[in-house]
């Protein structure tokens, strides 16, 4: 069976981490989210894959190429305007016939989730889960083993069963998508709702892993979850008096300098330079070509490739985009905080700061927990940042 992965969206609620790549390419334990999805398909012998791309499509195509490296055969279809996931699926219409799987590219799933959908052997069918927070999703009502209605992001409590966005569908869905698009509805759940009248959709429950990353702090959770399955591989050069405890993955040509202590699970990429005397706590992922200077402490954070963190810095529960640079004494503490995303405030139990790619900090900058600093900002020495900064802000 063929599978379609919808990977065209930007992921606006994850800004500024999506400045140069789409949400599906954001690394979780140093692998793009989409890689987990493709992996789950391949492990279920679904290797014929169509990926619908759009926003920053080159990042996806450059990474996955024709799919051979991942054991799959990947074709790409471009959704020029990212109007909705139904519209995205419609873009792949010419590549699909009969029955096929549909998956969102931005949810981390494991092989069981895909396996359960396949095993159910029903088409059309939809993978559903129970959710504590159904109002963010498409909520369904069930009757006699069939979905009876779909409600997109309902304001009132209808049910706690939500659509994961994973389906087994047939090409008959396209007529319903077409009809919905004509009415200005671009979501796939709209089309599924439309189709219910003519064709029942079977709900498939799964106890497989399904995590949706909507907000930045979700990425920290995803990262921690992915690191739990860390297969330790230690390459590079480890100087004397380095303590590695628990699973610690270290990439090629990385140097861990003397006196550094790392408590796993921690994953460090290729070509990094860590230390001397750096301390890294769980559950931290560090990309490629990252330098961390002496006496810096990092806890439960994600540092993407090419970051450069100066001496005596402290980062806890932080997300650093690609190429964040800081001179010494960067303070990014984590605690309970209110985070402002698109003018909505979210209370997050434990969060540090989210730093957009290529932002540069002078020495001694301190950032309040829950603050989002845009991409390409320049922050002068001694600044204290207490509220969100847009991209390319200058703080003097």
């Amino acid at each position, binding site marked *: 069976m063929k599978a379609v992965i919808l990977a065209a969206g930007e992921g606006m609620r994850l800004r500024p981490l999506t400045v140069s790549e789409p949400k599906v390419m954001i690394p979780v334990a140093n692998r793009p989210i989409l890689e987990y999805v493709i992996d789950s398909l391949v492990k279920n012998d679904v290797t014929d894959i169509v990926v619908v791309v759009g926003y*920053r499509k080159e990042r996806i195509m*450059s990474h996955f*190429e024709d799919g*051979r490296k991942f054991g799959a055969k990947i074709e790409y279809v471009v959704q020029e305007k990212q109007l909705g996931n139904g519209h995205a699926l419609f873009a792949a219409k010419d590549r699909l016939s009969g029955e096929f799987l549909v998956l969102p590219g931005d949810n981390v799933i494991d092989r069981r989730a895909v396996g359960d959908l396949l095993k159910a052997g029903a088409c059309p069918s939809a993978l559903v889960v129970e959710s504590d927070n159904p109002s963010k999703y498409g909520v369904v009502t069930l009757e006699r083993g069939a979905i009876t209605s779909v409600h997109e992001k309902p304001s009132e409590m209808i049910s706690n069963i939500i659509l994961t966005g994973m389906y087994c569908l047939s090409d008959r869905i396209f007529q319903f998508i077409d009809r919905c698009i004509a009415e200005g509805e671009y979501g796939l759940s709209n089309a599924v709702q439309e189709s219910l009248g003519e064709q029942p959709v079977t709900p498939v429950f799964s106890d497989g892993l399904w995590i949706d990353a909507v907000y930045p702090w979700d990425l920290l959770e995803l990262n921690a979850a992915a690191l739990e399955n860390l297969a330790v591989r230690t390459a590079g050069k480890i100087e004397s008096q380095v303590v590695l405890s628990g699973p610690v993955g270290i990439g090629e040509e990385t*140097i861990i300098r003397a006196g550094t202590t790392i408590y796993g699970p921690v994953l460090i990429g290729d*070509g990094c330079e860590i230390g001397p005397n750096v301390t890294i706590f769980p559950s931290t992922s560090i990309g490629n070509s990252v330098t961390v200077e002496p006496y810096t402490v990092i806890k439960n954070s994600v540092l993407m490739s*090419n970051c450069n963190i100066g001496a005596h810095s402290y980062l806890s529960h932080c997300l650093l985009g690609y190429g964040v640079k800081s001179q010494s004494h960067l303070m990014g503490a984590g605690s309970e905080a209110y985070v402002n995303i698109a003018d909505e405030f979210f209370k997050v139990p434990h969060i540090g700061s989210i730093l957009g*790619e*290529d932002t540069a900090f002078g020495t001694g900058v301190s950032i309040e927990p829950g603050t989002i600093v845009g991409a390409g900002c320049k922050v002068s020495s001694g600044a204290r940042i207490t509220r969100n900064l847009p991209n390319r802000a200058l703080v003097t």
Partner: protein
Amino acid sequence: MCGIVGYAGRRAAQPILIESLKRLEYRGYDSAGIAVVGEDIQKGMQLFKSKGEIAVLESSMPEMKGSTGIAHTRWATQGKPTTVNAHPLADCTNRLAVVHNGIISNFMEVREDLLKSGHKFASETDTEVFAHLVESELKGDLVEAVRKALEKVEGTYTFAVVGAGYDEVVATRRESPLVVGLGDGENFIASDVTALLKYTNRVVYIQDGEVVRITRDSVSIVDEKGSKVEREPQKITWSLEDAEKGGYPHFMLKEIFDQPEAIHDSLLGRIETMEPEPFFQGNSFSNVKIVACGTSYHAGLVGKYIIEELARVPTTVQISSEYRYSPISRESPLVVLITQSGETADTLGAAREARKRGNKTIGIANVVGSAITREVDHVIYTRAGPEIGVAATKTFVTQLVALYLLAMELGMQNRSLTAQARRSMTSVLRNLPRDVQDVLNKADEIETLAKKYSSARDMFFIGRSINYPIALEGALKTKEISYIHGEGFPAGELKHGPLALISKDSPVVAVAVRDHTYEKMLGNISEVSARGSPVIAIGFEGDSELAKFADDVISIRQTPPMFSPVPVIVVLQLLAYYLAKERGCPIDKPRNIAKTVTVE
């Protein structure tokens, strides 16, 4: 300049040869041909060739039975691109077929001799004499016949031969590439390893003068004198999928977008440690000579500025084919030879010449195990991965990376660069992938600009100092793929002549980053815009001044000016690409150009 493949195995040779040949199509494509022999001796040798691309050959050829064969894609150097002159070429009996890459320099004399002894020639090519030579030497053993025939020819070549009744391919080389691929119950030869990757990643490189025989079960190599040679196979670590387009409309665009990764790979393992390379220890060089052709030559010109700045060593740059004409200097320079493929005949010749002159040599190459790596004292690999687009992009950028690393080594060695300065440069280098990514994020903006200027007939590129060679490279990219006449000048030279060419129909691309040349560049921009030329300026982000002078501005991230050529050239690559796309040009295979030039 041509592509050669050969197969001996259990499967039908024809489809495998065509598939392999397609991988080499970028090398040239004015004609192509195939010859297959089978077990059935009576059937003889089956040969077919045609003018044009491989697709033409594929659609017009008859089905050929047999599991041994050779095929060729040609880019004419001798004789017109006609079907008759296409390879393979046969002997008088039509039982032998030969494909050839390179030039037989004494072919006129050999041809005379052969004509006298009664051989009949069908084509104007130098290759055909080899078919007749092998025919006259053939007394049973094909390898022996080829070896005897080789004694009579001079020049540079790769030959591959098949004969009716022989289930083997015999091949040989001199100063032209040849590689053997080892399969399971089948073996291959090719002029480039990309042709083989679909079938195997275990290869043996053949050296000058050696003759190799492949059959389905064996590979045997003999040297010039006929004694057996043993050689361990090597494993190719990059795979064919690296060479596939993966969703991009053209290899060139894919390769442009691959650049952040290519830079990362090129730097990996080279900047973390502070230990100098053994090669540089105890060697001090009073001057450097960089030798290269085409885009590599432009990298060399940038290298001159980098080496002079970081290592304070006077550096000259020379075109490979001109190097041998330069007088031997009293001081013995470090000679740096830059070639993407490592097989560029002119540069290989220069490497030998440099060695003859007793100079130390460094090669900068992308292909591991290629010819240049055996000709030099020290190799710096660029690790860009395979580059298929004829227009060099990621290999150019990684050549610059190699030159930064080389200059840093030289500077450390002669103490003009402190450990501290080196360390801060290391962090600038580490950030280069980000600077390039930032340009890639602006691809849409550059595409819009290209649409605006795509009808231009001429385009001029100007820059000063280290960005002057970048202007040359931008012009080269533009002309080779978009067929717009592009020319690069040092901005200060405009007033000494080129200004006469400038008109409102000839856009000028000016590199104006904030370095010591900035004020002068603004002057040059005013100079051309006063004459009505639209100006596209490339400057640093946040430079509001530039917009007052230029019609369009593309911003790059601020970097130390010495490193600005890297993001700037990516802007110019994208500009050239989108201009070509807008004009509907065959981007990956521009007319009359081959990727690897293995003839002098």
